[in-house]
């Protein structure tokens, strides 16, 4: 087969390269206009009965996690990491707050029992908080610094690396 003929199948190479390039891009990188803005304030009626508001946490860095018991497997994957991060950094002032959205209370309590959650969690009736934060799906996590600004938004299950890096970042800021 002459080299001219070989050009026929080789014509498809650029297309293959373009498509392969697609693997290095992230279609889920949905830019959030909230990043670097002040975090919307919210009030949460916690499952243990206490109220909690963002104003009340002023001066503390916050990891705000949106989850649901039906969100399988992503929420199940990151749940132990959330609890572990809370236990590790609570003494340095870090707050971890869970917002449970569109859930049944019994299932949610079962979920929290399963992962032995000890950080504050509460439901989001009417999805008010999720709407304010522009939550696209569960899980999503917002890292809020001591000034109450959103520093970073993560879509999907958290990985230990991302968690560690972002928590350190909001702990550092003064």
């Amino acid at each position: 087969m002459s080299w001219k003929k070989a050009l026929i199948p080789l014509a498809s190479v650029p297309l293959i390269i373009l498509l392969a390039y697609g693997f290095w891009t992230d279609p889920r990188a949905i830019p959030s206009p909230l990043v670097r803005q002040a975090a919307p304030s919210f009030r949460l009626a916690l499952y243990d009965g206490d109220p909690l508001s963002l104003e009340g946490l002023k001066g503390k860095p916050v990891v705000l996690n949106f989850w649901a018991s039906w969100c399988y497997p992503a929420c199940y994957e990151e749940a132990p990491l959330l609890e572990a991060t809370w236990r590790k950094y609570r003494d340095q002032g870090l707050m971890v707050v869970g917002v449970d959205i569109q859930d049944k209370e019994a299932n949610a309590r079962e979920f929290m029992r399963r992962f032995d959650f000890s950080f504050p969690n509460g439901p989001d009736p009417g999805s008010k908080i999720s709407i304010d934060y522009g939550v696209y799906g569960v899980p999503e996590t917002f890292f809020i610094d001591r000034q109450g600004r959103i520093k970073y938004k993560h879509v999907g299950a958290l990985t230990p690396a991302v968690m560690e890096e972002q928590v350190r970042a909001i702990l550092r800021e003064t």
Partner: protein
Amino acid sequence: MISTLGGFTLFLALGVTLYAAAASVLGARQGREDWLASSRNAVLAHFCLVTLAIFLLEYALVTSDFSLRYVANNSTRASLTRYKIAGLWGSLEGSILLWEWLQSLMAALVVARYSGGGGSEAPSGTRQLLPYVQAVLQGISAFFLILMAFGANPFARIFPVPPDGRGLNPLLEVTDMLIHPLLLYLGYVGFSVPYAFAMAALVTGRPTEEWLRITRRWTVVAWLFLTGGIFYGGWWSYRTLGWGGYWAWDPVENASFMPWLTGTAFIHSVMIQERKRMLKVWNLTLITLTFTLVIFGTFLTRSGILGSVHAFADGPVGMMFLAFLALVLFFSFGLVAYRSDQLKGHGELDSILSRESAFLLNNLVLVGICFTVFLGTIFPLLSEAVRGNKISVGTPYFNKVSVPLGMALLLLMGIGPLIAWGRASLNNLKRNFLKPGLAAVLGAALLYALGVRQVQVLVAFGLCFFVIGTIVFEFWVATRTRARMMGESVLAAFGTLLLKSRRRYGGLIVHLGVVIAILGIAVSSVYKVEREQTLKPGDRLSLGRYSVRFEGLAAGERPTHILVWANLQAFRDGRPLHELMPGQRFYPNQQSPFASVDARYHWSEDLYVILSAFERDGSSATIKVIVNPMISWIWIGGGVILLGVLVAVLPERRLALLALRAKAQVA
């Protein structure tokens, strides 16, 4: 248990399919009939194994065995059994299994149809091609099996076992979910048969017209399923998605439309090769493109490189699809290059005024539309690669390009079937096109007189009148001639005509269906009107001849969700027409409510209502009303297309038998 058994079955199927491919090639090379027979048995065994795997997964789905990750992700205990069954094609792993099952079914059908080397009635050459056809089909199967074994295992386990599964997306829990995906998959998989024959023709060095003759019916049936799937999908999204439209140029929709375009081009251009022995390379290219576009579409939607509402799944699956895509492209076009000396055409175009050139133009337009859609679909990727930012092109781009090309296609659809082969004489042109042309001009003039001023609509209608004119004219002239010559009644002559040249007249009926659908698309998109208003109980919203009165809100619990609906009384010209109850469905597992559309469907126009929002205390509701004129013509056109294809492909003997029976009843 099921996990182990299922995984084992798939591995076994992979072994058997590789054996079948190898045995058929070796058998053909060495002329060993026993090896060929063994490979045919292996093809059937492969089909049985994949069928078993389907049964295992369905069993797990129906019995809610959440120890399988796939079952936990795609069904819940509360689902109705039929939606548990439909969970099979609810997401990636299961749909690959379904695809592979249909693929193995096709291979088994090819064996059954041509067992014993083709039988007496199979076209010549079938015997030589078959072993390689099987090798290609088994190769495709092997890809899907490898995909399941190493990237998308439908039998993967999870631990801990969740108490209940996530279930299908509520939008998929409708009867349509049982039909639309199956039609599409049958269409996708169906095109692998003509593709396999084309590759076999190249491998064996017989790239003549025989593979076209053998696969004609396979191709048309695959085309029918794909067309049916696309139409059904549009109908489904129109009735349930609650935005009043049926097509959004979403990547997943485009993925089904692109192979449809090249497949349609292929069905037409094979006629030129059969008659003039031209365009060999072109036809091989078209069928290869059609098959690769099927794989490409699946790659796009399953790899997650483009953001689409439907897209999901990361991991190795995308890479594996891309590797397979590259393999298919290199293999197919490599073979074309290798055999290029044998692929020189024999004939050439005699005249620009001929059916050949009309068909060629039709091909160019179809492939042109396909390229446009392709470019639009991958544009976000292209722009990110070149300029570093992600830009999507939307509906305006697709409409702007495809509407004029569609008009050109419409014109060619009128000309193609009636213009003479070879060289059309002035007489031929005058005889066939004068009256339809007049009909077009008069029709458009009439519409203008009635107040239609949009150029696009006038042109579209004129062209549609032209095409309908040519079809009616052709049927009328042929029937009258036959009735006169044979002394038959008009009805009998018409019936015999359909039977005698089913391919031609079936094709014309398909064209008629396409024109009806295009009329529906044109009118409904130009003359659609809508209005949205917040109403208190007793308030009315008026739109054209229609108005709806909001009577009040109601709510009720359904097995899987809570439904809130508005009671509306619709009026036309002030007279009560119908009660409509649009609503919103709230699912415990979903964040946002889903629309529950209500509509009064009618052949002339649909009255379509959506409950956009409401106050919880029932004091008001926001209602959107859409009047969609002639939109049902799209679905009617789909039905006519189905009828035409059936006329074209039903076996000769079956029809002859029906005709005999009908005659006997008359007598």
